[in-house]
């Protein structure tokens, strides 16, 4: 609609029609067309995994909408009331106003239960899609320069989302979430020296007090959403500034992006996709119960339910606690040191920090300062992929441990057996995953190379005039070969003396890490190698493939 010289040519724009006029009115006063044009021309490449971030965005929108609905009826108060609503097994029972209002939303507000269930299912989807999105970024190396900061921003969003979820499901003040809060409170108390005081600060006195729900509410609907929104905005600005990455392919270079412009194609698709995501969430929410607080009943510190688990995204932390051997406790300097809490806390923090700063670690090890806009196929970065697989295994072990009791009852194992198995898996699993993944990646690289050079095995056996039997290889076409061979060359850092002519221990360590990172890597094919192979290929089966080029 608008062109480079939008202002000068305004009179030529069709003035008939309400929208035309309205658009014009706006543009003349805001010059917004410049922004629309700039943004609208952004190119978005097509690959399903590039939509995962959008799934997260859309579920967040759904969460905002339904959450706002819930705020109209939810009362974040721990004042004791007597329930007198529609759910018979709680009639006449004392509970906090928070649970009372949640039950009210569920049973007496029209559409209230559906809203609660949409809000909660969307929350699960929100965190899950962020997780999967992050894995995509990791395994394709999309976090490399210039996108390292955006990785950190995205990871912060993941942590914020977990915090949103935890504060959210603790709001109704039911038995299940109360059990979860008690665990958190216990963990905080386990921090040496300051734990007890932090716990007092958080709960406004001894646990559980009467303040926590109100405080969580402020976090849940004000502070955390504000942070999430700000980080999402920042995240998206960075995506626009950096342009989108793309997989290698014919015509795709480090300098361009091949795909559809945001306006009109991509926006149309994305709009449609929003409704698909929304639809799936509503479908789940209308058919499947989530968080039936009416079954859990009011929180009271004495009853604990068997099978108490947090929502899935907190599971890894719960699992780490469950994996600790009991009785690890010492009494030093007139204080109890609860190692079974301190150790898991340290492990969790180290794990989270390592993931958050991984781009910087890898850049330091590889010494790579180039910009990367073409994604790696996971197999072509064997060491990174192997590290990722090890990390995923570690996380999965912690996660599985959180449901150890259910695994035991459902598969008829003893709970001790399950715990010991997962303890072993936590340590051995990542190591095995690392080596297996690395070998598999390298094998796949070799297979790609063979295909690029010699083509596919066609299964056709041909007898040459000389009596020799050969299998005909079907050569790959140019486009495919491009995808197969266009991985960039890397070389390990070598030890070099610094400006003062010294070789420090740090340099040596870095070089050693770098060698380890690149060990077993296949050097990229050179153009001559490819051409030589092509000629060789022709010689292989002259009679059959002769005319194909």
């Amino acid at each position, binding site marked *: 609609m608008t062109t480079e010289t939008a202002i000068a040519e305004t009179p030529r724009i069709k003035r008939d029609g309400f929208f035309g006029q309205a658009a014009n009115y706006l543009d003349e006063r805001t010059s917004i067309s410049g922004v629309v044009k700039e943004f609208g021309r952004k190119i978005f490449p*097509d690959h*399903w995994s*590039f939509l*995962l971030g959008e*799934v997260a965005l859309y579920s967040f929108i759904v969460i905002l909408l339904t959450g706002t609905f819930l705020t109209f009826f939810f009362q974040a108060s721990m004042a004791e009331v007597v329930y007198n609503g*529609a759910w*018979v*097994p*709680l009639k006449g*029972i004392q509970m906090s106003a928070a649970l009372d209002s949640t039950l009210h939303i*569920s*049973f*007496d507000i*029209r*559409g209230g*239960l559906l809203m609660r269930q949409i809000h909660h*299912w969307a929350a699960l*989807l929100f965190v*899950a*899609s962020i997780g*999967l999105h992050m894995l995509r970024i990791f395994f394709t190396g999309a976090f490399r320069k210039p996108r390292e900061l955006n990785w950190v921003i995205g990871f912060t969003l993941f942590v914020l989302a977990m915090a949103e979820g935890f504060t959210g499901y603790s709001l109704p003040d039911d*038995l299940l979430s109360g059990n979860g809060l008690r665990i958190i409170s216990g963990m905080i108390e386990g921090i040496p020296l300051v734990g007890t005081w932090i716990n007092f600060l958080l709960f406004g006195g001894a646990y559980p007090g009467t303040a926590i729900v109100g405080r969580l509410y402020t976090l849940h609907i004000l502070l955390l959403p504000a942070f999430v929104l700000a980080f999402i905005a920042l995240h998206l600005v960075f995506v626009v500034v950096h342009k989108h990455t793309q997989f290698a392919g014919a015509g795709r270079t480090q300098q361009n992006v091949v795909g*559809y412009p945001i306006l009109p194609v991509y926006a149309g*698709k994305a709009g*449609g*996709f929003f409704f*698909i*995501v929304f639809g799936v969430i509503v479908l*789940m*929410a*209308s*058919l*499947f*119960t*989530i*968080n*039936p607080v*009416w*079954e*859990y*009943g009011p929180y*009271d510190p004495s*009853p*604990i*339910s*068997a*099978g*108490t*688990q947090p929502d*899935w995204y907190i*599971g890894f932390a719960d699992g780490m606690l469950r994996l600790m051997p009991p009785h690890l406790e010492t009494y030093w300097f007139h204080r109890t040191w609860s190692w079974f809490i301190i150790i898991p806390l340290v492990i969790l923090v180290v794990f989270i920090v390592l993931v958050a700063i991984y781009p910087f670690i890898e850049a330091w090890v590889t010494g790579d300062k180039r910009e990367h806009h073409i994604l790696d196929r996971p197999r072509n970065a064997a060491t990174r992929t192997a590290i990722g697989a090890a990390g995923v295994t570690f996380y999965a072990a912690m996660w599985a441990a*959180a*449901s*150890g009791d*259910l695994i*035991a*009852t459902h598969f008829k194992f003893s*709970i*001790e*057996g399950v715990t010991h198995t997962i303890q072993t898996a936590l340590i051995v699993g990542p190591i095995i995953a690392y080596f297996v993944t690395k070998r598999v990646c390298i094998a796949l690289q070799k297979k790609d190379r063979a295909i690029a050079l010699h083509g596919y095995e066609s299964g056709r056996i041909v007898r040459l005039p000389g009596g020799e039997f050969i299998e005909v290889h079907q050569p790959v076409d140019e486009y495919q070969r491009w995808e197969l061979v266009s991985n960039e060359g890397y070389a390990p850092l070598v030890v070099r003396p610094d400006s003062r002519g010294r070789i420090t221990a740090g340099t040596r360590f870095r070089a050693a890490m770098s060698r380890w990172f690149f060990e077993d890597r296949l050097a990229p094919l050179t153009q001559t190698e490819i051409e030589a192979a092509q000629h060789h290929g022709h010689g292989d089966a002259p009679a059959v493939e002769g005319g194909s080029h």
Partner: protein
Amino acid sequence: MAKLNQPTTSGRSTSRKRKTGRRSPLATFALIAIGLGLTGGVYAAANATPSASADTASSTQQQVSDGEHLFQANCASCHGMNAVGTAAAPSLIGVGAAAVDFQVGTGRMPMAMDGPQAEEKTPQFTDAQTKELAAYVASLAPGPAIPDAQYLTGNTDAAAGAQLFRINCAMCHNVAGAGGALTEGKFAPPLKGVTPAHIYEAMLTGPQNMPVFNDRNITPEQKSDIISYLTYLEKNPSPGGFALGDLGPVAEGLFLWIFGLGSIVGLAVWITAKSN
């Protein structure tokens, strides 16, 4: 009751409106069928027990001697000739009719194989035979009797029952009665589908790793309230839709990852493939 049904429909009506065209006829039919089936089942169960315990109340000498024969044939190998116990199984002197009715009625006895705990099976004996066995064991020494029908109606104070359940039972059986793990492969079973009489007897006799809740601990009226609560849960399917086994966040998380995210990834693949 009527009041309760209201929220159920209102909570769902929004969603039903959305999809009326696609699912209503069959789904409504299925729901009615399930509802009828459940109510019918519970009604039958509730009806069966009173008549059964009426029998025991007037247990005859005939029953005791028939029970003795059954016992010698099926139970004595483990429990000893006069139920005095062996190295393989405890003495049954004084366990009462309630314990036998529970153990045999739920199929736990005769025990099938050595495991962490005697598990439920399809009962091997008819109801009459079970009562004969119970009468025999009760005749050896006084013990807890099969509960009175007045406590098994399932329509006393469910809210009080729920409260008692959360305090006394949830730590093993889970707050929604979905069951839970104990140590060394033992477990507290899910409580769906257990008859009121068996619930009562379980509390009264404390099978295996379950503690005994005697009448001073939880009065018969309170036991009856607990039964009413469990009956209520069973009769009223979750207002929120399918309950995913009442397993809470683990089931929800698995469902989300496999079906929720799974279908969204599938749709994303489809939407991006479409354009090419």
